């Protein structure tokens, strides 16, 4: 629903970088690989957290 606060595998705080990643790589047209390198999300366990995430708050909010 919301981005997990930490990486499942290593425990690094990934949510800190989510909004910038979303703005630059999802909504913007930058290369996700370059954005993650720039944000300092280096390990592939943390990178998959960002790459594979989908925000679902907008999807579930009408059914409250």
């Amino acid at each position, binding site marked *: *629903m*919301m*981005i997990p*606060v*930490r990486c499942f595998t*290593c*425990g*690094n*705080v990934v*949510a*800190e*970088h*989510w*909004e*910038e990643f979303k703005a630059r790589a999802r909504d913007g047209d930058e290369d996700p690989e370059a954005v993650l390198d720039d944000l300092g999300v280096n*390990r592939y366990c943390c990178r998959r957290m960002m790459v594979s995430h989908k*925000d679902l*708050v907008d999807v*579930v*909010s009408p059914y*409250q």
Partner: protein
Amino acid sequence: MAEEFDVEFIERGDRSARFLVRGLTPAFANGIRRAMIADVPTLSIDTVRFIENTSVMFDEMIALRLGLIPLTTPLDDFEVGETVTLALDVEGPATAYSGDIQSSVPEVQPADENVPIIELKQGQRLEFEADAVLDSGKTHAKHQGGVAVGYRHLQRVEVVGDAGEFEEQEPNILRGVIETEDGELVNADEFGNDLTQRYPGKEVEVHDVPGAFVFHVETDGSFSVDELVLRAIESLDLRAAELEEKVRV
């Protein structure tokens, strides 16, 4: 174990560092690693009293997210088990961030300010009071101060001859930190983790240096790397002293 340890930094930052320690036994190196993960306590939200939660997430889900947010921990001021009260009040449309959390103790603040807790729509509101407790990583992983703490042997690279003139050289992949013949410490990242990039046309041999360990330590922001390592060693020291005390005849 009266000999001195020799510590040398390869990279040193506030939240991430890489350093070489000589004169360790493998058991002692692992002891330090384990102490960094499980024995150094950090503050983390443990109990949440919801006053209003009309967001799309259940109370429990929000409480779990809150627990994972790292809080800056002045270890000198707190004992294990002591609590700090925190509060948050955000009304939609807005996103509640970790930076919106108000703390009753100025030294205890969220270490990262941009962690989204929950996105609130029009008319939704999140208000709670929470208690952060100081505890160690043994109790719950959210209290771990160290993230991805590990070590490798230091590797010594020696040039033993030239590669065959007409042979196609294959990549010689290596990770960690190497020590060259001049005693220089080089992180393998610097030459693309490939020894043939650093020693083109040479035949090299790689050996682990006994008793030399390269630690890579990251923290979640609760405190600096220096603090984490020193506290871990202090906890080992205290336990060794306790053992000595208990088994004395």
